[in-house]
């Protein structure tokens, strides 16, 4: 079953490949969509009544936050440390955990699907992908990495069973990622893709490496022992991958 949902300012596609009764699949899709909309309502920085907005205004203190928001805040702090400050939920002055929340929400959605019996699925949230198991045909999920200059072409195709793929780049939205140390737009890298076990981390790592510029390539290589492989295209058209990137044959 395939479903497309507009939520969190993007499009989320839900592919369930399990051999389950259709009413069950429909219920799983509905639960997934409900969760994603709940996250949007609670974590949007654009909704005055969201939990994040209330926390930003000081109407909630840490003790009064939901366990989910506390988790997000802790995770953003961990990422700030892990990325040497290049992933910064306070880069704009005010808390904005959006860079973590989308990947986390999809990661949680996938875990909930698995707990509910869907062990073969693929969620694609605006290009950030989390898959489990295999397609209905029994094959790994194929994930193409968009060519950074040619939108209708791919730079690599990955074969993924259980894992996540996230890409951050400058080709879609220009200079939207900044080096938090200089305040200047990130330079040097055109596209950074990270594949690994957790979508929230893969997405955050990709953004941090993009912000680092070329030194981000070496930084990404250090994530390999933790299970995070990467592919990078530089502004001057060079390409790099780590050795274990699961490129489809």
């Amino acid at each position, binding site marked *: 079953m395939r479903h497309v949902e507009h939520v969190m*300012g993007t*499009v989320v596609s839900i592919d369930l490949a399990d051999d389950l009764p259709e009413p069950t699949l429909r219920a799983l899709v509905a639960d997934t969509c409900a969760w994603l909309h709940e996250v949007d309502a609670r974590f949007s920085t654009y909704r005055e009544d969201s939990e994040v907005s209330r926390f930003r205004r000081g109407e909630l203190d840490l003790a009064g936050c939901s366990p989910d928001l506390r988790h997000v805040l802790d995770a953003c702090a961990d990422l700030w440390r892990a990325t040497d400050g290049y992933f910064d939920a306070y880069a704009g002055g005010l808390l904005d955990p959006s860079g973590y929340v989308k990947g986390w929400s999809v990661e949680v959605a996938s875990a909930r699907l698995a707990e509910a019996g869907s062990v073969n699925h693929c969620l694609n949230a605006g290009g950030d992908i989390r898959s489990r198991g295999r397609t209905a045909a029994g094959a790994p999920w194929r994930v193409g*990495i*968009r060519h950074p*200059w040619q939108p209708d072409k791919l*730079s690599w*195709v990955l074969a993924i069973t259980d894992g996540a793929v996230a890409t951050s780049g400058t080709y879609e939205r220009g200079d*939207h990622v900044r080096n938090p140390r200089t305040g200047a737009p990130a330079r040097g890298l055109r596209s950074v893709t990270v594949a690994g076990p957790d979508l929230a981390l893969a997405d955050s790592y990709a953004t941090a490496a993009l912000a680092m510029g070329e030194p981000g390539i070496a930084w990404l290589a250090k994530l390999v022992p933790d299970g995070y492989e990467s592919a990078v295209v530089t502004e001057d*058209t060079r390409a790099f991958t780590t050795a274990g990137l699961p490129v489809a044959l």
Partner: protein
Amino acid sequence: MTSSRFTRVAGPGNSARPSGPAAHPPLVANARARTTALHRPPRAASPALDDLLGLVDSGLGDLLGLTERDVIRLFDLGDPSGPGDRPEPGSVRVSRDNAGHHPRPRRRPPGDSRRTRPGDTGA
């Protein structure tokens, strides 16, 4: 005999300034060169990359005169060639920078807390 496909350019021993079209190569030609390069298939990565970076990290790189930048240069795969394929619709999910409807407010200059669009939690 000088091939008409090559153009003399200014350089040591040749201070003559090129003139005519050669002085300003057409942008189209540059774009074509880049496109051609991008179609080249990527070379296989070597598993030694991570080991070498580890070596640099450990300080042993100093002994070999290797820096991270040297290691990266050694393992440059060339161009992001890609399979050059256009994927069959539905055959692959495409990972890319957010293809959402709204721009993502991920990074802004310090002090810039402007919003883009309501409803965007975007990451």
